[in-house]
């Protein structure tokens, strides 16, 4: 333990603690910009400078470890003046058109400016004669260099959490900026659209591309029937943007709010998550049989999940030779889209041309996924607009809805019934758990041998997890699996996905089935989730997801009555020709940059 004094208060903290963290233990807040709990120390922005007794200059508290007997002042005149100058310098290179900015009221620089910079600015506004690039090429997000303060949170996110580095620091001095490879449009580089950078950007330099106005237009258009689906991770995070603490489940209020916004039908992505399990589980078992029993060389093992559009784009860029290992199943969002304008429109006697399909996602990559040319199996654009959790919160505020006082209500039907297996798609390991709950039962006729169906070995926040499920007492048609050990792996965050993909690519990993989610924590830590997101917040959202699962009457995808019905009425059987047409897809090799 190290003892130091901060503003005359004594702190005892572990060796290696930063001054910033030590101050926090005393309840002393030091402002930060480039610092982020998920990322390595950078010391770029200097906003967190403090005065250290005996030091020649002010030190960055985020990058200074404590030492015995250290004396720190966080709020001296010298510190306040320096901080004011630092904030003013950042503002001199930041196009501060706050009232027009998407991040207005939700901007860390604005908050600092509010404390440190009012009245006349000290420095010249350098933005006026600088020709900044605004990149709107991606359907998922906008990169506006005029708002960038070069704190490099995005660069560290893309490198450290995602192993992508689609963006890096380029040029120097006053020309320094954050660039893609040779300043190519973001739509034409290795970027996965995961939005983790968007979630961490302290200003409006990286924001999701919003479709709020288009959705309002569709709602107000009386000729249109607007259906909305909500992803599992939205219900455990939306509350954070509406005044609730992290980890609060707001499912019932969410449904009511969507109805009040004017959506004609409020449906659930969890329904197609259940459907995904039937399709993907069948695909896995079929692959195992064909490869292991029949010696089919055209099919690849291990099979990777395909629900995460960030992961899909990652593998298309980085490991194109492993595309045959991906499940051909579309993600639940896209399955829903394909069915909304076919099965659903038929059932409700609607002209699919008049159906507008909106999805609420914890994700920015889903916006990109919806725009992929393959995603038009219904004959129309299967998903018209994707909104993030954050955008939905904006719409709820715009509509003047007092969220807290809303009554709870249930999803509409059809395509609104779901099981706990669908809900847990929102957490890392959830797809694996849902798939095992069903696949094990298909093969053995018995439920998975875990208490309350909770397959604990696949849960948790460890970046890469492995589990082995022994299969015993198989039904006759599956007796080739008798005594077999099904080896599975789970990774979340593309840096971890890369570890598994690399091992598989080099033939060093012996798995049958691998779940990959592009974002840390899975969808609950998605790029479209409320800001801020941190390890503690992800943990709380995860607990909420599993609580939601326990709270459901049905816990296994194959028990979902609407899933049974859709096969009887429409899809015939899992992996049928019709299912392939609507619910499966193919992938595209992409450039390595």
């Amino acid at each position, binding site marked *: 333990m190290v003892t130091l004094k901060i503003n005359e208060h004594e702190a005892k903290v572990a060796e290696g603690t930063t001054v910033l963290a030590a101050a926090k233990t005393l309840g002393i807040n030091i402002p930060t910009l480039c610092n982020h709990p998920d990322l390595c120390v950078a010391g770029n922005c200097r906003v967190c400078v403090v005065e250290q007794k005996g030091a020649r200059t002010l030190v960055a508290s985020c990058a200074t470890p404590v030492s015995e007997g250290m004396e720190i002042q966080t709020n001296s005149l010298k510190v306040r003046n320096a901080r004011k100058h630092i904030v003013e310098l950042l503002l001199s290179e930041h196009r501060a058109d706050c009232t027009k900015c998407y991040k207005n009221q939700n901007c860390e620089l604005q908050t600092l400016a509010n404390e440190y910079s009012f009245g006349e600015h000290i420095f010249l506004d350098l933005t006026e004669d600088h020709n900044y690039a605004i990149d709107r090429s991606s359907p998922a997000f906008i990169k506006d260099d005029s708002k960038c303060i070069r704190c490099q949170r995005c660069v560290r996110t893309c490198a450290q959490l995602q192993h992508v580095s689609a963006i*890096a*620091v*380029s*040029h120097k001095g006053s020309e320094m900026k954050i660039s893609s490879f040779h300043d190519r449009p973001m739509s034409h580089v*290795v970027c996965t659209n995961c939005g983790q950078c968007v979630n961490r950007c302290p200003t409006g330099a990286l924001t999701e591309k919003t479709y709020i106005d288009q959705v309002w237009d569709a709602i107000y258009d009386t000729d249109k029937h607007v259906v909305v689906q909500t992803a599992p991770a939205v219900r455990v995070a939306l509350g954070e943007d509406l005044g609730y603490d992290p980890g609060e489940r707001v499912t019932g209020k969410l449904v009511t709010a969507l109805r009040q916004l004017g959506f004609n039908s409020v449906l659930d992505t969890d329904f197609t998550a259940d459907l995904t399990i039937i399709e993907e589980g069948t695909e896995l078992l079929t692959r195992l049989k064909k490869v292991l029993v029949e010696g089919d060389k055209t099919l690849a093992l291990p099979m990777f999940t395909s629900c995460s559009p960030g992961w899909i784009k990652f593998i298309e860029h980085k490991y194109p030779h492993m595309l045959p290992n991906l499940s051909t199943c579309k993600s639940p969002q896209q399955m829903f889209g394909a069915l909304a304008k076919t099965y659903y429109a038929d059932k409700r006697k609607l002209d699919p041309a008049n159906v507008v399909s909106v999805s609420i996602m914890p994700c920015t990559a889903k916006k990109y996924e919806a725009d992929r040319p393959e995603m038009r199996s219904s004959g129309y654009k299967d998903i018209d607009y994707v909104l993030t959790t954050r955008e939905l919160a904006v719409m709820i505020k715009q509509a003047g809805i007092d969220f807290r006082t809303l009554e709870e209500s249930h999803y509409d039907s059809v395509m609104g019934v779901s099981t706990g297996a669908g809900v847990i798609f929102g957490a890392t390991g959830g797809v694996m758990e849902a798939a095992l709950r069903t696949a094990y039962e298909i093969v053995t006729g018995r439920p998975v041998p875990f208490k309350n169906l909770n397959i604990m070995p696949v849960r948790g926040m460890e970046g890469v997890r492995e589990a082995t499920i022994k299969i015993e007492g198989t039904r006759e048609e599956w007796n080739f699996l008798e005594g077999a050990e099904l080896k599975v792996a789970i990774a979340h965050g593309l840096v971890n996905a890369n570890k598994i993909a690399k091992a598989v690519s080099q033939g060093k990993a012996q798995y049958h089935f691998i779940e990959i989610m592009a974002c840390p924590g899975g969808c609950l830590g998605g790029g479209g989730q409320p800001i801020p997101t941190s390890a503690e917040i992800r943990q709380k959202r995860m607990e909420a997801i599993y609580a939601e699962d326990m709270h459901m009457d049905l816990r296994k995808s194959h028990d979902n009555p609407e899933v049974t019905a859709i096969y009887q009425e429409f899809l015939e059987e899992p992996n049928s020709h019709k299912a392939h047409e609507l619910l499966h897809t193919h992938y595209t090799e992409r450039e*390595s*940059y």
Partner: protein
Amino acid sequence: MYQTGNLVKDLAEKHGRRRESLMPILQDIVKKHNYLTDDVMVAVATELDISAAEVYGTASFYTFLDTEERGKNVIRVCKTITCSMKGKNDIIATIEDMLKIRVGETTPDKMFTLLETNCIGWCHKAPAILINDMPYTDLTPETVIDVIKGYMR
């Protein structure tokens, strides 16, 4: 444009494939070809298993690691204070007039590129220019013509 061929692989063998091998590899490519093409930067990224954006970021930081097409001979005119006071603008005007290009441009025959540079340490013999690796100092509009003529053969 030039073909990458085995160049990057050979340089990776020579300098290694660690992150710190990046600079010597880029320097050797520029020594040979004057500038970095997109293809060569992607090849370096692949060889070192880093992202192409990082390679570009590093290259763009250094003035002498060009990422735009350059002519066979790169003329860099010192733009810093002493050379400015000693007539660097006249030198540039003379070269522009002679080669029919402006600063930042390359002649259509790809023989010359004209650029400005920060101080190259010849203030005592200003104005100074650098052609490829060779400095020329104490220049006048008359003498610079002769210097450049020497590179036309």
